[in-house]
């Protein structure tokens, strides 16, 4: 039988899809014609401009109907100019790749990539530019109205867990609409990260907001931040509505909404307005993998007291904040209460949490992958800072820095060995050995590099490491796969398999934290709701049915397992007592060994 809200939901779905379609279509609602001035401004190099301009003549009197054809020609022009510059340098000026001036005069590939967006922005004109507010407003109203119609019926239902129809909805169970949404998201990330010049119409739509917040035009990152925050707020309200009987879920969701809106979005805008460095203050290295990159360090070191505060704040969060907060509350204090990726996963991702892979195989892949990313981030950062620092001098030199890094690594490894022995944290021997081996390998190879007086610490240019990490981990993994795969592999793909900060927090949680999920005696009926709705793919039931408390490095403490349990078996708790005794071996449900001896 049809639900009494079927009509309402159908209209809602229709409105959301129409809003999204309108917003997407707006990308094609401008025409583009090249302005000579923007070529000059953005190349920002008279020689380059002089060499490129002749090729651009054919574009000047043309009007392109879309950004695709415009950029196809623009790319051609830039490439021709680049080639002409190269030939001019080699044939007329007699320079070659071995000369230093050659490299300062040649037009690099990154210039070709980065000028396209601002040039395309200035080339845009037409319907959308004239009616940006109306188009954007209409799309916004449709999406908001649709979301309201879709989600308001939840309010009409009695409060309580309701996952009715999750596995019969094609959107939520990898059906056609799920695959469609996944493809849309992946495409969006692909364009955002690698071809932002095709998103200029969206930037034009959000320009007025950008001017209000940071007094400048919208970049693709402003656009992304705004959309991201909007989605977290709308879907966060849905989450609160859905779990309005559950105080933990309400507070947690409100928290991620707050941190995203204030810390990740508005505060950086205001800082940018004040011409200050504008980082996301709650983003922590190594999730914020560029924190120690040269341009970020320069920016902080050149911004007076505030810059130094930021440097201190970032380092303190990593070295003190993470271990201390995680000791008291588990990694949830960050992953499901503060983090932006977590915020999106817990709001927009909530309808997809059951799609995470619960198999043992997935757990094995997860453990290798996430820790490899962490090692990659550590190695890259050490290499980058090493190159940034002076070779000789009185202060922080390269070798001093490497000694400090080695000492931190050694301390961490020693601490783990000590804990494992003292309180029997039951870390598998293999994991301990692999970890120790990796630590010593980093220290050993680094030391060897210093001894051999290599220019680059680990035999690889730090620049190379940076670009690999930025591309494969920062863009492809975190964005494309991390969010694009929500409807395909669940909402925590990035957090589970790729986030280096999650790996770090997880190590602390597993090795030294008061946090655990307590299992309520023998009340478990093995129904499988907890495991199914665990976004991190933890087989919660396998512990619950044994009456065994749960400490898993991957658990982000979202509390949904406890919420969906029909028998009140699970509780997220912090306590310093007995955590390893209660999680280590199976606590017999019924026959304890002492009882048996008594009876015999």
């Amino acid at each position, binding site marked *: *039988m049809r639900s009494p809200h079927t009509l309402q939901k159908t209209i809602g779905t229709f409105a959301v899809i129409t809003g999204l379609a309108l917003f997407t279509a707006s990308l094609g609602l401008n025409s583009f014609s090249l302005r000579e001035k923007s070529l000059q401004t953005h190349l920002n190099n008279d020689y380059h401009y002089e060499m490129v301009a002749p090729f651009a003549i054919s574009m000047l009197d043309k009007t392109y109907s879309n950004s695709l054809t415009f950029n196809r020609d623009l790319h051609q022009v830039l490439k021709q100019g680049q080639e002409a510059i190269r030939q001019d340098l080699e044939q007329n000026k007699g320079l070659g790749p071995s000369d230093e001036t050659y490299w300062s005069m040649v037009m690099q590939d990154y210039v070709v990539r980065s000028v396209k967006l601002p040039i395309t922005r200035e080339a845009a004109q037409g319907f959308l530019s004239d009616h940006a507010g109306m188009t954007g407003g209409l799309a916004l109203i449709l999406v908001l109205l649709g979301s309201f119609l879709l989600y308001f019926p939840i309010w009409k239902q009695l409060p309580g867990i309701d996952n009715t129809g999750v596995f019969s909805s094609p959107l939520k169970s990898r059906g056609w609409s799920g695959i469609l949404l996944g493809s849309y998201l992946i495409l969006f990330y692909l364009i955002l990260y690698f071809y932002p010049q095709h998103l200029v119409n969206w930037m034009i739509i959000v320009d007025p907001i950008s001017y209000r917040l940071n007094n400048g035009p919208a970049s693709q990152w402003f656009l992304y931040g705004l959309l991201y925050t909007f989605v977290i707020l709308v879907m966060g309200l849905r989450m609160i509505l859905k779990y309005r009987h559950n105080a933990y879920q309400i507070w947690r969701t409100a928290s991620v909404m707050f941190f995203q809106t204030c810390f990740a979005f508005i505060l950086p805008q205001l800082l940018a307005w004040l011409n200050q460095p504008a980082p996301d203050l709650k983003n922590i290295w190594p999730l914020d993998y560029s924190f120690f990159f040269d341009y970020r360090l320069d920016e902080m070191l050149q911004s007076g007291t505030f810059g130094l505060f930021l440097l201190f704040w970032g380092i303190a969060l990593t070295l003190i904040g993470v271990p201390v907060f995680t000791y008291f509350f588990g990694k949830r204090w960050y992953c499901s209460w503060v983090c932006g990726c977590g915020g999106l996963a817990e709001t927009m991702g909530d309808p997809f949490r059951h799609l995470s892979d619960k198999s043992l195989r997935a757990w094995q892949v997860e453990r290798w992958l996430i820790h490899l990313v962490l090692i990659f981030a550590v190695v890259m950062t050490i290499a980058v800072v090493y190159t940034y620092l002076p070779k000789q001098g009185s202060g922080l030199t390269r070798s001093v820095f490497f000694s400090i890094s080695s000492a931190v690594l050694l301390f961490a490894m020693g601490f783990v060995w000590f804990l494992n022995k003292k309180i029997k944290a039951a870390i598998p021997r293999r994991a301990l050995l692999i970890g120790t081996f990796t630590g010593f390998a980093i220290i050993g190879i680094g030391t060897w590099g210093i001894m051999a007086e290599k220019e680059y610490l680990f035999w690889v240019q730090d620049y190379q490491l940076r670009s690999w990490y930025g591309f494969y981990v920062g863009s492809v993994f975190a964005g494309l796969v991390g969010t694009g795969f929500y409807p395909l592999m669940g909402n925590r793909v990035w957090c589970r398999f790729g986030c280096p900060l999650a790996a770090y927090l997880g190590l602390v949680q597993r090795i030294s934290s008061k946090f655990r999920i307590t299992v309520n005696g023998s009340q478990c009926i093995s129904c499988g709701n907890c495991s199914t709705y665990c976004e991190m793919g933890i087989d919660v039931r396998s512990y619950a049915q044994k009456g065994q408390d749960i400490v898993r490095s991957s658990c982000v403490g979202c509390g949904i397992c406890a919420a969906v349990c029909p028998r009140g078996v699970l509780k997220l708790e912090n306590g310093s007592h007995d955590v390893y005794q209660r999680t280590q071996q199976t606590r017999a449900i019924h026959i304890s060994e002492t009882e048996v001896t008594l009876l015999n």
Partner: protein
Amino acid sequence: MHTVIIGNGISGTTAARFIRKWSDHPVTLISSESPYFFSRTALMYVYMGHLRQKDTQPYPPDFWKKNRIHLIQAHVTSLDIAHKLLQLDNGQSLAYDKLVVATGSVSNFFNWPGQELKGVRGLYSLQDLEYIETYSKELTHAVVVGGGLIGIELAEMFHSRNIQVTFLVREKSYWDHVLAPEESAMVNRHIRENGIDLQTETSLKAILDDGKGQVKAVLTDTGETIPCGFVGITAGVRPNIDWLKTSPLEIERGILVDAFLQTNIPDVYAIGDCAQLRQPQPGRQAIEAVWYTGRMMGETLAYNICKGPLAYNPGVWFNSAKFFHLEYQVYGQVPASLPPDQDTLYWEHPDGKKSIRINFDKSSQAVTGFQTMGIRFRQEVCEKWLANRTPLDEVLPKLALANFDPEFYRRYETQVVQLYNHRFHKNLPLQSPRNILDKVLQFLKN
């Protein structure tokens, strides 16, 4: 020593798992219902779309091979005790050294006229669920007969698909032979709040045929005819032992077993729903068709087979359920009507959706049972108080230790203690609910 277990429900599976844990004996698990063990209590969630059938299987398919538990999907047709042989419906026969009967229950049907019609079914097995599923497509109105735990599940299932439900309950109030009047009334309200047409003190008289062998309506003892496309019969379950009636096994309502879960025939055991204890422990039933006792029996039996004699001891009674969104937990004895030597402290939230009940002995003040609705309690703590027969005056100040609700939930211990102080003119304090887990673990250790 080959152990053959008939039935792969929670009892049979637990027995098989622990036999493997404690020995290398060959183990065979037979079921015609499902190739793999699944959580029977989760069937409703499959229907409602919360879970897929495979999500209700606690162990992955490769678990059985890895643990050398041999699975056979077949129906046992007869048992030859003299030769220790089982006959299967696929033509094979199977020899055993030890036989465990764990065949569970079947739904009760009380010879109502029309009960054989199409569209009349109980809810117990996977096949029942599949049957109900095929009937649900065009269904607009269903009648559920019998006010127990399965009845309310079935009502919730139909409700999730916007199928109107009339819920016939013979008693004055839902489950009132188990729940005390206040809790029973609370569940009644909640059922009705969900839009279910709950008809108490109403029994099924007959099921009416539409002329094509399909159900068309039910006739109640109040003379009402209720048109419907499906009738769910949930008037309790009974042991699934009809196929053993002609065997030399001693059978009453269930297969009679001693404290070691052994039947009258050597090397033949019975556990779970189908077993009837010859001498149940004081205050306990001879047949307890509950998930938890099935699991305990499986574990005890495996111990008996692998290690040595161990009497079945189910410990302090506990149970739990969820009525729509209303969670229910009980620890110890909280009977529907209070025995004369006991008193009860009952607190109910003004919203009528949460309650805490503590029963205690009038003379010794020892607590005898805890029952909560809409509030979770911690089993280990309650169990310890009950086992130690702790006086209520000692329990109440520490009541926070028993709370198992998620963090940030409102706590009601103060109200309970206030109520007690008011009623008994006492002045008990309430200990601070800070660092509860640490206090709980200290309490459990001492």
